[in-house]
């Protein structure tokens, strides 16, 4: 169960990083630091990263019972009363 909990923790951090990439690239485009093509590339990368990682963070139950159990002690998951 341990590696699953670590994976959910890692996935949550990567998912947050993916959102920061999405937002950050648009801020850079807004500030004329990067052009629109570069912005699209970063946005697509952030999107792919989000959808690869966020499901483990948001809906661990989709990957089986063991992931769901492991999620109860992960960092950024709700702590439920037993």
């Amino acid at each position, binding site marked *: 169960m341990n590696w699953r909990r670590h994976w959910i923790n890692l996935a949550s951090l990567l998912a947050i990083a993916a959102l920061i990439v999405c*937002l950050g690239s*648009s801020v850079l485009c807004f500030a004329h630091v990067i052009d629109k093509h570069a912005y699209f590339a970063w946005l697509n990368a952030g*999107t792919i990263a989000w959808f690869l990682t966020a*499901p483990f963070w948001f*809906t661990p139950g*989709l990957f089986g019972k063991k992931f769901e159990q492991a999620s109860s002690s992960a960092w950024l998951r709700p702590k439920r009363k037993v």
Partner: protein
Amino acid sequence: MSLSWKEITGRLDALYEFDREPVHEDKLQKGWEFASLFAGEHVAGTEFVIGAFFVLHGVSAFDVLVGLLVGNLLAVLSWTFICAPIAVRTRLTLYWYLRRIGGPGLTAIYNLANALLYCILAGAMIAVSATAIGLAFNVPIPELSSKLPTSVGWVVITLVTGGVVTTVAILGFEKLAKFSSVCGPWMIMIFIAGALAVFPDLGEYHSVSDLWTIAKTKIWTGVVPAAAAAEGLKKLGFWHIMFFAWFCNLAMHVDLSDMAVFRYAKNKWYGLYTLFGVLPGHYVAWLASGVMVAAVGLKMSPGQMAVNAAGLAGALAVVLAGWTTANPTMYRAGLAFQSITPNWPRWAVTLAAGIATTIFSCFPFFFMRLLDFVAVYGLVLMPIGAVVFAEHWLFPKLGLEQYRADRTRALFNIPALITWAITLLACWAMPFNLFFRWLPGYALAFALYIPLSWAWQRFGAEFPAAEISGGGK
């Protein structure tokens, strides 16, 4: 095959049997659960259309910024002071509370009306997704004034999109519902990113005042664009925007649908958590879609807007925004339809709701007149919200008997039925903009329901109250 009212209401009761009992203290949820629920619920595919329509209706920058803020705050207060207090006191869903107040017959009619409206709404969401898919196949998007399908390509795209959405809903509604929660944070980020990234296309800026100038002269100009005016779009002002933001979720707050959610709240102040939904979904996303439509030359095509602002990720956002929100909407419609479909399995009911939804999605009328449809949606169910509010809060104060329909086992609460019908007729005849009609209509519903109920209770025997056997609680 015909069904009696007793059978229909019996089936409805069976569907909602799980929710019959008030929620127990140990099932109450924490505040953050409400915050995350609302945050995920209010970013839909239709946000791409609504904010863009404000621009096409010639709204000014001040009107949209302040009008939306005030309207959304009024919506949050409606959740907090109208919906949540009744939910917290009763701990029941609207279905069961209305069952006691209105009788099973009225509740069945309410559910079916709701189902039909849900199908139209889901159809509009599928049409939004279709605009993005159509881009890949060069399918022309219908014009603003279009009512009927405009091309074979549009019909094919909407039918295929609706077919896929329905199939996925049949195969795995619950898994998709869970997956849709993943999309929420990313989707709002796409709105924000898209709006920021297209700003350079709208003009030069070096300071905040430059941005404000662009907002006033290139986006929310206060003038209906010539092409939109030619299609019959009228100018909207501060009050229109404020009222729209207030009533766009009328079905949930004033009409009390969200009792289903707030029955799990510890107190009425949990209504304030709706701010986590309306602020990103009905403020940030609407402003963002306004910026996006200005950047594509004011063409109402969510797909084109999103692709221009966010590339492939934008196209994916439009498809997913329509898909993930059409799915639960279709599910709710199916739940209501299930009451009149004897012994149909779940998949067959979802299929029926999906077919109805897909047919609606072919007609651009619902998608291109979304602002008006949203107004009608709230308006149709509004009198029932007034009936429940009056019965819950005002009847004890006025010395009137509560839940008479339940006690007498009446199939219909006749005063409620009359109130519903007359209020809707009066709203239809009101000589001012559709957006403003619900508020006087709401007042009229109180003015009708209270004296009619007094008369029903005073001269009850003279009313032809239909009796059912074995119904009621």
